[in-house]
């Protein structure tokens, strides 16, 4: 096979090339390191040399994924490798340990290509909140790749990494995957260990695959899922995950929450969504209108709960033990200077929001009420799943927007998560697959549109089967983004 072609196959196909002996894992790694070195999307915050990439990797040459490199969102702790969560406050921080997800990948024989750009502490929907500048959308470098796993998605879509590890708290895997025309899967809360994943909102954070296709997503999930004794909230997926193979959707019912889709969806996005519903019908699936009466309050509840948890999770960055410490006089001043200089504006906004929401006298009005809304959304999905197999929505109300377009108004930015947040609050699995192209609202070349499918908790296999059948039928061509 010609040298330049080594980065073209999907991760699954690359694994086959290596295990069949057609190509060596060294050749594959070299090709990808070269691709990563040409990063013109600001996708990487740190790139590994060949030797660094192999650090801690076991069983090279055995197993279906051995030798397939992977890019890691910079929110995962990697022993001795800079880990910043795209924040200045962790500049220079070298974790003394590996996240469980990272060591699982190493155990499967997968070298680490590098650490990927993201919104600071995963707070954002555009990657513009990175202390190291935004990653760019490979479809249009003037546009955002989405966030918070923007670097991971940009790299996979732009052919700078075969696949990547992301995290999703309110849509941070699915939305960037949608905006970059690739696949992003947020598994059920508790299916993959959170140990070593820098916490943003602990009751919502979940790690997952960002890949070119559904088969790769299934493969990566299969490696990652499982109970981890270091994470008391992890349980794994019983039965594990196998490669999906479904070719039709007969007998399956897809619920469309019409109330939720009422406003704010770009016409182009809506058109692709409707066309995808038609395609589901043509594959034998049934479309039903459903009601998720409280899902519309998801954003409001989310932006109380997530900042509340974030405000306590981020308190440990105090300059005492690691990370940056600003020059100061005395203890309180050290806290103030270090945190003022170390955190960016969006992180500060959420810390303040969350601190307020947890304050004595306000707890019940904000945090308590948001928790009750969350419980209602959980029940909404439970009753929906009594009638339908899946709930489907557009992943994002819009295609990729221009850099700077939404930075002035946090609420407009938060509305990006309108369709992804309810699933996060309910803890259920959801996947975004590219469903087609649509023109952006302000004009310009067509951009990818994501289609989101959500399933009941721990029904990832069923979800992947449906996504696989639909993906095959759609036949989305992501190559324009990957070949500059």
């Amino acid at each position, binding site marked *: 096979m010609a040298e330049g072609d080594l980065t073209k196959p999907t991760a699954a196909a690359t694994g086959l090339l290596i295990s069949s002996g057609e190509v060596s894992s060294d050749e594959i790694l070299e090709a990808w390191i070269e691709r990563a070195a040409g990063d013109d999307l600001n996708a990487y915050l740190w790139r590994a040399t060949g030797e660094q990439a192999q650090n801690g990797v076991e069983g090279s040459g055995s197993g279906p994924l051995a030798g397939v490199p992977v890019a890691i969102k910079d929110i995962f702790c990697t022993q001795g490798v800079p880990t910043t969560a795209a924040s200045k406050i962790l500049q220079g921080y070298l*974790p003394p340990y590996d996240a469980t997800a990272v060591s699982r990948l190493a155990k499967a024989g997968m070298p680490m290509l590098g650490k990927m750009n993201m919104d600071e502490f995963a707070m954002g929907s555009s990657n513009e909140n990175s202390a190291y500048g935004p990653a760019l959308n490979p479809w249009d470098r003037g546009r955002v790749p989405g966030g918070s796993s923007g670097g991971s998605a940009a790299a996979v879509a732009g052919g700078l990494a075969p696949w990547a590890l992301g995290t999703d708290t309110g849509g941070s895997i699915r939305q960037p995957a949608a905006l970059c025309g690739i696949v992003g899967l947020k598994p059920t809360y508790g299916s993959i260990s959170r140990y070593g994943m820098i916490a943003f909102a602990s009751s919502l954070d979940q790690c997952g695959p960002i890949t070119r296709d559904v088969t790769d997503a299934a493969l990566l999930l299969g490696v990652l899922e499982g109970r981890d004794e270091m994470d008391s909230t992890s349980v794994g997926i019983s039965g594990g995950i196998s490669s999906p193979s479904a070719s039709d959707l007969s007998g399956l019912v897809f619920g469309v929450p019409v109330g939720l889709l009422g406003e704010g969806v770009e016409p182009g996005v809506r058109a692709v969504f409707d066309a995808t519903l038609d395609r589901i019908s043509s594959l034998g699936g049934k479309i039903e209108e459903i009601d998720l009466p409280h899902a519309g309050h998801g954003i409001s509840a989310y932006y109380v709960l997530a900042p*509340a948890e974030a405000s*306590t999770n981020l*308190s440990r960055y105090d300059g005492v033990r690691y990370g940056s410490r600003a020059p100061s006089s005395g203890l309180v001043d050290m806290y103030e200077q270090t945190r003022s200089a170390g955190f960016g504006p969006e992180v500060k906004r959420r810390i303040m929001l969350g601190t307020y929401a947890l304050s004595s006298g306000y707890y019940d009005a904000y945090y308590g009420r948001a928790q009750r809304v969350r419980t209602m959304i959980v029940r909404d999905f439970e009753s929906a799943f009594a009638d339908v197999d899946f709930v489907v929505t557009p992943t994002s109300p819009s295609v990729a927007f221009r850099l700077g377009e939404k930075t002035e108004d946090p609420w407009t930015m938060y509305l990006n998560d309108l369709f992804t947040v309810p699933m996060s609050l309910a803890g259920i699995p959801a996947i975004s697959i590219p469903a087609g192209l649509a023109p952006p609202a302000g004009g310009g070349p067509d951009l990818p549109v994501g289609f989101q499918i959500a399933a009941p908790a721990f029904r990832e296999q069923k979800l992947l089967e449906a996504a696989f059948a639909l993906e095959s039928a759609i036949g989305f061509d992501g190559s324009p983004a990957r070949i500059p």
Partner: protein
Amino acid sequence: MSQGASSGGGTAGATADGYEAVIGLEIHVQLSTETKMFCGCRLSFGDEPNIHTCPICLGHPGVLPVPNRRAIEFGLLIAAALDCEVAPRSIFHRKNYFYPDNPKAYQISQFDIPLASDGRLNEVRIHRAHLEEDAAKMIHVGTSGRIQGSDASLVDFNRAGTPLVEIVTEPDLRSGAQVREWGQLLRATIKQLGVSDVNMEEGSLRCDANVSIRPVGSSELGTKTEMKNMNSFRYLERGVEAEIERQKQLLSAGGRVVQETLHFDPSSGELHSLRSKEESHDYRYLPEPDLVPLAPTPEMLEAAAESLPELPAARASRYRDELGIPEAAAQLLSFETEWADFFEGVLAHDEGVEPRVVANWVTGEFAAELRRQGDQELSRSKVSADSLGSLISMVAVGRISHASGKSVLESMVAEGADPRQVVEEQGLEQISDSGELEKIVKSAIEANPGPAEQVRSGNQKAIGALVGAVMKETRGRADGGEVNRLLKKHLDL
């Protein structure tokens, strides 16, 4: 063995001038598990700083807590010993505050649903008992010894994450003395469970007292002050008494008690106000999302109930009611586990000796001799329960006199001597042959005609000189009663 516990239950709470004190305690107990509450680091005391640490107890990014099963079992034991109700699902919370000894900037503790509640230990009700983690230890370099004005502050994270059970009482205590006595009972109880070293000087047991006063007969609570972290119950007693007195004088003079945290300096007897930062503290409690609810299985609850040993309070009543030991001695023995174990060892040596006699020897002569020789620690004593038992037996059956017994005890405490050997070597065995003793009595009368005549003419006191003469001759080996009887017989009385 501590003195003073013999003053009985709670002393009267009402003070002479019409106020009564209302006191509640908060006790932190460090559990003596192998490892920390939420990570695998070893527990330690006095080791080189920061060697028992890991990413979890240092609060690194991305780490998660995993509860220590043993700590939960210890917590359940304490709950059972304090007769508490155990919550079917208790919840861990984050208690948020910034301080360098708090690596995550939140302490994992329990808040609205604690592990255990509604218990009792003797006369004091237990409000709640919950699990949490200890903070790191700070050392402030410079003259002040406090963080303000120090040249530098060092943090030792060896202690960070040590499992704690915090026990909160209802405000059922009424005096400093009662605080000390009940505190000692609680300490003895927890020690008996084997779940903590309960060493106040090393901080494995820490006690804060909330003190307020109110007019006698009132059911309202006055404004309380909090006395922090005294390193002995004796100091706590003095501190509480001093604070009660201070509040009394304040109120009597028409003043008001201000809610504050106080420190009592035992050397000067003075109370100092610490910073009142706690008053304005908002801990922003949040249910800990990294942990699932703590739901003890029926097996765990059963195991705790089954492994409950006889506790000091029950032991004290058994000593009193079944063994006939006076209240004071019963408490003295049972509130300190090692003394109780020692006592029972002595008791087991010879079942023929009355328990109250054994108790008298152990809490009286033996404890006094340990003190006299300057070492009160039973654990360092050279006297085994068995050897003390054989000494008491020899006295009880009249083989040696009580006076000889005390002198033998002296060499036992000093050198760990075997009492039988001492009795034999020194020829202390009482003269049991009355023929031999009779001879000595006769010759004593002959040798002391003056006193003998005085006795005959009615001066009973003069017999002392004759007894002394017999004792001198027998080197104390004669039974006093027998000597008296024989003297009277030969003086024709």
